[in-house]
């Protein structure tokens, strides 16, 4: 138990542009863009006849687009019917689950190659209804009637963490600033702009309007101002990830066939999945997520590696507090110690263990069901030294990790990769 019966690799991975793209791009368009990008990334080429099944991660096309049954819809668009095609749902961890299930299916021997899709087109709904659709990933019976919104639940975790460990809003702001700096270097990101640049733009706008200029010394002053409105105390607008349309595609292959597609496959050395009560009030610890700790335990055990062996990671920063808590739940830092490490720059692109080089959900964007697969895309690029622009890390990445969290932490998938 807890071991794959054969080695499984990623042999290609790509994504669509992320952004506010509806109605110019809808789920089928986004998915085909991701597929084409992923096919291009396969060194020796791949064709539909090589692929045995389509595993689609999608959270809520039913609510966002009035469309269910995405498995065959996506398979058909890239020539993969009549082979098996299924959809997997676990809120924001949907395509993390699809990837994990694809790895398990390939390891079982039933399929040699699976196309993992992550797809979500959220902007078909106005923002208020997007928020309401997202809220269905938390508990509709007892949290929602008490007024819980999605940011509200993470904000509640934040107040508990602040209270227990002395964490501050500035600690969270540093995470947003860092992720936006990374997103500037990602041509696929929704917001390719740093917080400093957004501050300068705001100042310029105020100047043009002939208004009195605020006394902002740095990004922190800007982030504490009314230009960054409170959403759910202590989380402000720039603590929240984006509402995004986007798709990603990952080709998972068995060891016997992997070398046919590339000389540099990225091996999946560990996969884990955890769960927790849907309501945060039904969990023992409000300062972290038990589902993450369980998923990480399984993935570390399967891979034989520990937190210290992981050189880079893509973490699920749906809110800045979520990245901070993940740094601790994954064992990268002791509880209450992550904020200091972030402050010292350890998680920056040139730090000891870069986190979210893609820009994360905060800057790259968060098309919820596509996020898990898109995290794997970034790791695939970084481990093969092919990240665009200036965001390739400066060392050779032998081992990496992705952390994909669903809802308010009731589902988590952790994946460990090695060369």
């Amino acid at each position, binding site marked *: 138990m807890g071991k794959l019966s054969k080695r499984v690799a990623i042999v290609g991975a790509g994504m669509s542009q992320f952004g506010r793209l509806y109605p110019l791009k809808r789920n089928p368009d986004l998915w085909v863009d991701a597929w084409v990008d992923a096919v291009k990334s396969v060194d020796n080429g791949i064709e539909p006849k090589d692929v045995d099944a389509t595993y689609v991660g999608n959270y809520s096309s039913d609510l966002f687009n009035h469309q269910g049954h995405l498995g065959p819809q996506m398979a058909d668009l890239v020539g993969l019917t009549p082979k098996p095609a299924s959809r997997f749902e676990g809120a924001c961890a949907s395509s993390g689950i699809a990837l994990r299930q694809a790895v398990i299916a390939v390891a079982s021997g039933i399929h040699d190659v699976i196309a993992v899709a992550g797809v979500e087109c959220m902007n078909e709904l106005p923002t*208020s209804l997007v*928020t*309401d659709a997202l*809220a269905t990933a938390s*508990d509709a*019976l*007892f*949290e*929602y*009637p*008490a*007024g*819980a*919104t999605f*940011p*509200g639940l993470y*904000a*509640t*975790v*934040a*107040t*508990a963490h602040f*209270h227990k460990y002395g964490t501050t809003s500035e600690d969270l702001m540093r995470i947003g600033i860092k992720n936006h700096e990374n997103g500037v270097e990602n041509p696929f990101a929704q917001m390719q702009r740093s917080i400093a640049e957004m501050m300068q733009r705001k100042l310029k706008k105020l100047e043009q309007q002939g208004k009195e200029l605020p006394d902002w010394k740095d990004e922190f002053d800007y982030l504490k101002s009314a230009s960054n*409105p*409170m*959403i*759910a*105390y*202590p*989380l402000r607008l720039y603590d929240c990830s984006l509402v995004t349309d986007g798709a990603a595609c990952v080709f998972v292959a068995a060891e016997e066939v992997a070398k046919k597609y590339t000389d540099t496959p990225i091996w999946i050395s560990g996969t884990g999945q955890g769960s927790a009560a849907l*309501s*945060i*009030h*039904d969990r023992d610890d*409000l300062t972290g997520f038990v589902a993450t700790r369980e998923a990480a335990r399984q993935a570390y055990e399967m891979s034989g590696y520990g937190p210290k062996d992981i050189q880079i990671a893509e973490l699920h920063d749906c809110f800045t507090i979520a990245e901070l808590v993940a740094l601790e739940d994954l064992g990268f830092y002791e509880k209450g110690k992550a904020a200091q490490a972030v402050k010292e720059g350890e998680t920056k692109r040139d730090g000891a263990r870069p986190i979210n080089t893609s820009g994360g959900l905060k800057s790259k964007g968060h098309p919820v069901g596509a996020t898990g697969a898109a995290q794997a895309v970034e790791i695939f690029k970084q481990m093969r030294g092919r990240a665009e622009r200036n965001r390739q890390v400066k060392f050779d990445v032998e081992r990496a990790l992705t952390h994909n969290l669903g809802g308010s932490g009731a589902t988590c998938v952790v994946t460990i990769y090695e060369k």
Partner: protein
Amino acid sequence: MTEAEKEFTIQNYLEFIQNKKLMGSKCKDCGAMYVPVRKLCTACNSLNMEWVTLSGKGKLAAFTSITVGTPYFIELGYDRNKPYCFSVIKLEEGPMISAQLVGVDASNPDTIKIGMPLKVKFLENELKGETKTDLGFEPA
């Protein structure tokens, strides 16, 4: 059917709240408490439950002050200028529960302290001519 014989369902739990009673279920075998009620004890796998009336006393475990609220709270009149507090309360009987926190200054969340003692406050909310009782807590 007497109150004690009621099945441990969500509907019965919610009906108690409508009648301004905070009830939970307690496992007669291992003593584990559940609020909202559960029929199956996940601590010892027993179905041997009984209804218990809770004191309604507890402490603030965590909270937030929400400026961009749910459609229901927007209908109740909350907005950016009038935020509301969502909270998690640790009941003195052990379980935690979610509820609106009232009687605090939601516009100044720094004044709200985790650990502060709270007591239950049933909130009568009127919406579209109908009165509904929602679970709330306030400083004790």
